[in-house]
């Protein structure tokens, strides 16, 4: 406790580094955390840790030609004797150094008992004179620093020793890790055999580290890229945690004051230092990414301070890392996944601690909305749990389905695609059908559009009659094409129609008009549509004048005197002549523009009389085009394409090819995503764009056999290039088949469809007499 308080007062500094002359192999700090020793093949120096940098204090590598004893694989600073250091030399020597020696050469003792590189030296944590070494030669030796030779030798009977570590709590115990994957526990009093042994890793175990507090915990790291934490306190050694790192683990060091944290570095590929929380073995808690080459030595600066980490590297630098400067991979990680599904559903994954909020809140969040007022918004919100820890993280994945009928969903798309009729019936019927479909699917806007299209583009039944000004009186003629209006107003209202879905009224108007006309009533009808912008609820007020018996057309305001001329020149009605540039003769236009502001009314008049049947459809084209573009812009290419197909030549030339192609492509793409292959095929067939039509022909291959020699036909024609006979002879009538040729894929014989069908009624065998039981699919 006393120590800790002192620590927080004394250890301070920042992230800093210094260049070394040579790559470092190992580093070690003295007990009071003020100095660090760096050892390597060509370096052996002591640096002072100042507030703002490293200061070289001592170069232990002395002499003109330093002996191999200076070539260090490992170094350790004695934790009790602050002048005492030990190094493991690559030549097999174990050397101790006494900084208190007055001469330049600080070498104190030299043990040359190991035959090969010594990988590790370790002072006993409490016994001042005890030193342990582990070597490539497979032996561990225990030295008493007061004696010239080792006091005991431990033979692992395994392969090379990679690490030896005295237990911090058990006076007599040390752990050794081996290149063959084993870890052994020894009692220093019993050099004859190990106390326990277990296989910790596949491949070499490069390092091990006892937990500073939990006496039974040993962390091991291996070439198999794993760090494992073992509980040694039980009879059977138990693996309690396993962390998978990205590269082989060269060093492992428990983090002071943090029970579950440990730092690792790798021996190749990866230059970073990772700090893991063993409870969360997948993602590092923190990383230090400063080194440019392999990190060879890591050590926590003070045994009670978790914020300072020192590291040496092959890149010849010595770093002090501050924990606050570490990068946190979790910060970069996306805690949420989100995906808009095909059907308007949403997959949303988020941290569990956030998702599973207090139960009641979560439940409310889920249940109230979907069932509640539709006006209320969707919202997926879970209250965060502030007690969440780094270690305990999991995610919940929810799929939110769009509610039926909402625009987020795509049900409408599928239903519409399947129900629309695009061909095979007269135009008006197609429109009517599609209008009904849209209506049924609760899409009034589209429904009205179809209805309007029908009205606008339907061909009059008998054009010759249309110039007959007695038309309206004859009563039983189909009179459809009869919408007259002020151009601007109509455009305006049409757009309102497109945008505001108030079409039921509109539709009624037209239906009404049409019914009337077909019923044979006198048909002069005039409709006044309320200005939509002025009245939201009742956009169109309609006045229906059924009184006028004469063909003469009268407006309530007597505003259109010119229209009387229609009676005088029935073959060339005025408004028609003016269209489409200016739909009104000047006088009436003036009048109507006057009227609109005055009465707050726009005018649409419907009268069969005013139009010749030939021109109006053309007149609508720009508007329809704009409407289609509008739909497309809203993402409803379905509508755009369907209308395009149904209208066919009526509109096709108005819209440039590429736009059409784009619409088609988009629509076909969507259809295929929804696996609506039939609809997609129909659309492709009905399209008028070359690029679209050829979609059906690509990637279709027919493999055919000659019906005579039964070998595959290679050339394009119907003459087999092997037997030189025409392959497409009908097996029934023996004539060459022109047109539909059907053949059995088993025996290659076939013929005219009707002949083969006829034949198959009598016999199941091939009509060619080859004896094959033909199957036609």
């Amino acid at each position, binding site marked *: 406790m006393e120590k800790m308080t002192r620590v927080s007062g004394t250890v301070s500094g920042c992230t800093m580094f210094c260049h070394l002359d040579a790559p470092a192999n190992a580093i070690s700090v003295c007990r009071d955390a003020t100095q660090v020793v760096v050892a390597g093949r060509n370096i052996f120096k002591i640096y002072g840790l100042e507030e703002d940098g490293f200061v070289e204090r001592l170069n232990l590598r002395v002499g003109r030609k330093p002996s191999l004893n200076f070539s260090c694989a490992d170094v350790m600073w004695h934790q009790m004797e602050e002048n005492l250091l030990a190094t493991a030399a690559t030549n097999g020597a174990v050397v101790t150094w006494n900084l208190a020696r007055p001469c330049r050469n600080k070498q104190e003792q030299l043990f040359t008992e190991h035959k090969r590189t010594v990988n590790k030296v370790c002072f006993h944590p409490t016994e001042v004179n005890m030193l342990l070494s582990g070597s490539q030669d497979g032996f561990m030796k225990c030295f008493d620093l007061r004696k010239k030779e080792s006091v005991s030798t431990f033979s692992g009977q395994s392969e090379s020793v990679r690490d030896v570590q005295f237990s911090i709590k058990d006076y007599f115990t040390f752990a050794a890790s081996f290149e063959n994957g084993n870890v052994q526990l020894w009692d220093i009093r019993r050099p004859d055999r190990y106390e326990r042994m277990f296989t910790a890793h596949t491949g070499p175990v490069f390092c091990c580290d006892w937990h500073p507090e939990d006496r039974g915990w040993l962390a091991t790291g291996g070439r198999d890229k794993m760090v494992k934490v073992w509980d040694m306190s039980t009879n059977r050694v138990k693996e309690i945690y396993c962390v998978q790192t*990205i590269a082989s683990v060269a060093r492992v060091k428990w983090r002071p004051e943090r029970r579950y944290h440990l730092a690792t570095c790798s021996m190749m590929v990866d230059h970073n230092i990772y700090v893991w929380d063993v409870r*969360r073995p*997948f993602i590092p*808690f923190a990383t230090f990414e400063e080194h440019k080459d392999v990190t060879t030595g890591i050590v926590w600066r003070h045994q009670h301070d978790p*914020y300072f980490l020192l590291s040496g590297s092959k890149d010849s630098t010595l770093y002090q890392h501050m924990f*606050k400067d570490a990068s*946190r991979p*979790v910060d*970069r*990680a*996306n*805690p949420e*996944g*989100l*995906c*808009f599904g*095909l059907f*308007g*559903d*949403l997959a949303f*994954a988020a*941290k569990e601690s956030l998702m599973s909020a207090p139960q009641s809140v979560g439940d*409310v*969040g*889920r249940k*109230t*909305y979907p069932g509640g007022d539709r006006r209320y*918004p*969707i*919202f*997926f*919100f879970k209250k*965060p749990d502030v*007690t969440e820890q*780094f270690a305990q*993280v999991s*995610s*919940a994945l*929810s*799929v*939110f*389905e769009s*509610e039926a009928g909402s625009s*987020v969903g*795509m049900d409408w798309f599928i239903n519409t695609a399947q129900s629309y009729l695009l061909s095979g019936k007269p135009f008006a019927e197609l429109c009517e059908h599609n209008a009904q479909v849209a209506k049924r699917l609760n899409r009034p*806007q589209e429904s009205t559009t179809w209805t309007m299209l029908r009205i606008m583009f339907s061909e009059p039944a008998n054009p010759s009659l249309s110039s007959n000004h007695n038309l309206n009186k004859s009563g039983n003629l189909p009179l459809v094409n009869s919408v007259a209006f002020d151009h601007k107003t109509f455009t305006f209202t049409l757009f309102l129609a497109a*945008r*505001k*879905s108030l079409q039921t009224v509109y539709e009624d108007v037209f239906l009404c008009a049409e019914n009337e006309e077909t019923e044979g009533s006198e048909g002069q009808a005039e409709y006044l549509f309320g200005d939509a912008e002025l009245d939201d609820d009742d956009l169109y007020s309609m006045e229906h004048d059924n009184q006028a018996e004469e063909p003469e057309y009268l407006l309530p305001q007597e505003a259109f005197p010119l229209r009387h001329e229609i009676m005088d020149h029935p073959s060339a009605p005025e408004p028609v002549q003016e269209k489409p540039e200016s739909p009104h003769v000047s006088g009436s236009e003036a009048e109507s523009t006057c009227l609109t502001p005055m009465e707050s009314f726009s005018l649409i008049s419907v009268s069969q009389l005013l139009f010749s049947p030939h021109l109006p459809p053309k007149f609508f084209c720009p508007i329809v085009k704009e409407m289609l573009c509008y739909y*497309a*812009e809203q*993402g*409803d*290419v379905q509508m755009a394409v369907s209308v395009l197909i149904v209208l066919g030549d009526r509109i096709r030339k108005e819209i440039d090819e590429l736009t059409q192609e*784009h*619409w088609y*492509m988009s629509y076909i793409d*969507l259809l295929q*995503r929804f*696996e609506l292959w039939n609809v997609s095929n129909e659309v492709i067939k009905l399209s008028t764009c070359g690029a679209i039509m050829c979609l059906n022909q690509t990637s279709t291959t027919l493999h055919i056999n000659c019906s005579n020699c039964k070998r595959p036909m290679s050339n394009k024609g119907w003459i087999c290039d092997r037997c030189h006979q025409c392959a497409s002879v009908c097996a029934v009538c023996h004539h060459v088949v022109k047109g539909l040729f059907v053949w059995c894929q088993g025996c290659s014989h076939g013929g005219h469809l009707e002949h083969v069908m006829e034949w198959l009624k009598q016999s199941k065998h091939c009509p060619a007499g080859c004896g094959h039981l033909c199957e036609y699919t």
Partner: protein
Amino acid sequence: NSIVWSCVFQVSVINTVDTSHEDMIHDAQMDYYGTRLATCSSDRSVKIFDVKNGGQILVADLRGHEGPVWQVAWAHPMYGNILASCSYDRKVIIWKEENGTWDKMYEYTGHDSSVNSVCWGPYDFGLFLACGSSDGAISVLTCSGDGHWDIKKINNAHTIGCNAVSWAPAVVPGSLIEQPTGQKPNYIKRFVSGGCDNLVKLWKEEDGQWKEDQKLEAHSDWVRDVGWAPSIGLPTSTIASCSRDGRVFIWTCDDPAGNTWTAKLLHKFNDAVWHVSWSITGKILAVSGGDNKVTLWKESVDGQWACISDVNKGQGAVTSITDSQQNEQ
């Protein structure tokens, strides 16, 4: 009298998928037909679920990454069932299903740091993939058909790292207006990326080389996700970007040459925004933020983006989450 534009959307939870992932899930992606869901997690695994008819059956558990898997992406089904995943282990793995079993088809190890994002390009151009990495580079991998992959790497695309990539749809914006009729527009491969330099960048391929086309500046913190909207019936290009600064921008370009991009702030959230995702028609944008909520947005008639889902007033203020790592330290 409801008006189409204010039509209210409703979404409900159909199921909570039990992924049995052992750590955080970082991404969930539905396939082209909407029948399968791929998830990836810190636990190094990628899982594939069959979600047909509201069910959720685990069909594959892909192991191969050695670090957290950040993102997954489905390729277009015309190339088979192919899934790409990218990970903290600096690898991109392309998985392929053959005869019901998933196997590694290709493993790309060309990045020096965590690979954060993968995205398949429009199928019209072939089978190719963009990968954005924390090493600041973006790689474009193109399958040459014989199992070989061509690599093109854009080094230093974003300093400190690239967080997200997203391809432009196959349609060239403006081609519908500009091109003379009958001439097939010359498709240009383009994608957008977002990075730790707070920038959104547009890239295009010219003569087989990738070039920076545009640099869009608006965010004041890391850009976490970018999404190029599907272009359905629209000649304009739209990109959504979101950032740790809590802002979501909608970038649009009406200019056929693709040079003028205008930013419109969709919303400023109180917390970091992690994801943006477009609906398949490109008209609705789903946004998920650090405060763990998903909101849906739609452009209204006047060109403003409106939230078609709104905060539940009953639930009180949104508490922002800060990872308890500060305390952990």
